């Protein structure tokens, strides 16, 4: 009887031991995995006119972002992982999207010029009232 009790106790202890080992292993593996998948990303935003000061760099689908400094440089405030997309924009330039791949830690978005045609002709007739609309 005594022997039986002991073996039951042993089995419980053994199970607990295995569970403890498993948990220790699981907990030590997860942070290691996270460390390799997530990383700090920095970059520099350029355009045909040179580095872009004040460009917004946002994580697509969120309101999390950074603003580039006078050298066009930025460091994203949140760690990023593979397939995250950064949307880089500045008024007057085409918006660029950069996808984080592999071990990307530095990105170089380039903002193309917008092929926009500025038009706004004055009326060929003199306005008769002060409240007339005119094409701006």
């Amino acid at each position, binding site marked *: 009887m005594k022997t039986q009790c002991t073996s039951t106790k042993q089995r419980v202890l053994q199970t607990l031991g295995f569970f403890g080992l498993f948990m220790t292993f699981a907990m030590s593996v997860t942070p290691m995995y996270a460390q390799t998948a997530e990383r700090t990303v920095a970059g520099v935003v350029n355009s045909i006119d040179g580095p872009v000061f004040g460009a917004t760099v946002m994580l697509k689908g969120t309101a999390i972002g950074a603003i580039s400094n006078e050298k066009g440089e930025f460091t994203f405030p949140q760690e990023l992982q593979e397939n995250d997309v950064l949307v880089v924009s500045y008024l007057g330039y085409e918006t660029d999207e950069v996808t984080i791949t592999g071990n990307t830690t530095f990105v170089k978005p380039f903002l193309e010029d917008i092929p926009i045609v500025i038009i706004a002709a004055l009326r060929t*007739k003199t306005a008769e009232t002060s409240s*007339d609309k005119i094409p701006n």
Partner: protein
Amino acid sequence: MRNYILILSFTFTLSSHAQRSDFKEINFQRADNIANQYKGEELYNLPLLVHNLTAPLHTDVERFRAIYYWVCHNISGDYDLMYRTDRARKNLKNDPESLAVWNATFKKEVFVRLRNKKETLCTGYAYLVKEMSNLAGLECEIVNGKGPTNKMKFEDLDGPNHSWNAIKLHGKWYLCDPTWSSGVIDMSAFLFEFNYEDTYFLMEPSTFAEDHQPLDTRWLLLAQDTLVIMTVPKVKVSSRVTIKQ
């Protein structure tokens, strides 16, 4: 039978012009309130502004409404930019190369003034509505063409003088004119006055065409008329079948 009903309903969908009344069930008050809440915001962080304007709204048309309403209540028309554009375009009319150089330089100034002072001309309004809509994930285009005002006619204009927008909402293209919605320039003082005109928001295309003639006539959005003519027999056939059943 089911197929005929599908054809019938599809035909009716095509036959209606894309206009504001398509969204009768939507109350734009929430979108307008959100736009008012962010009145006076700067353009330095456009994605964040777009996020703030659109995130609490549930439909694309409301998201677009918030953007449109915000632009029309926060961006002023600029007579100086307009006057200089007109003068340059007239002077360089016969010199396309110089005109291109002028445009490349001048557009930078237009964007700087829009960003820093929130003042612009029609191209800037149309650009901003397009850019903000795109950031909100909506398809939006700039449409250039003639926009006669006062007692002018299309024939009085030498070339395109105006820009507006086409916006795709729930699978259909709609027209709007943020410049003319925003306000007027008081010609006695050459100053802009905000005076929101709601009729240019998703205006019915045939009414819009009365004072908007796009360079690319596809943007009249009257092409759906052709579809109506083409699909009329189908309606009759399917109606007859429905009655028989």
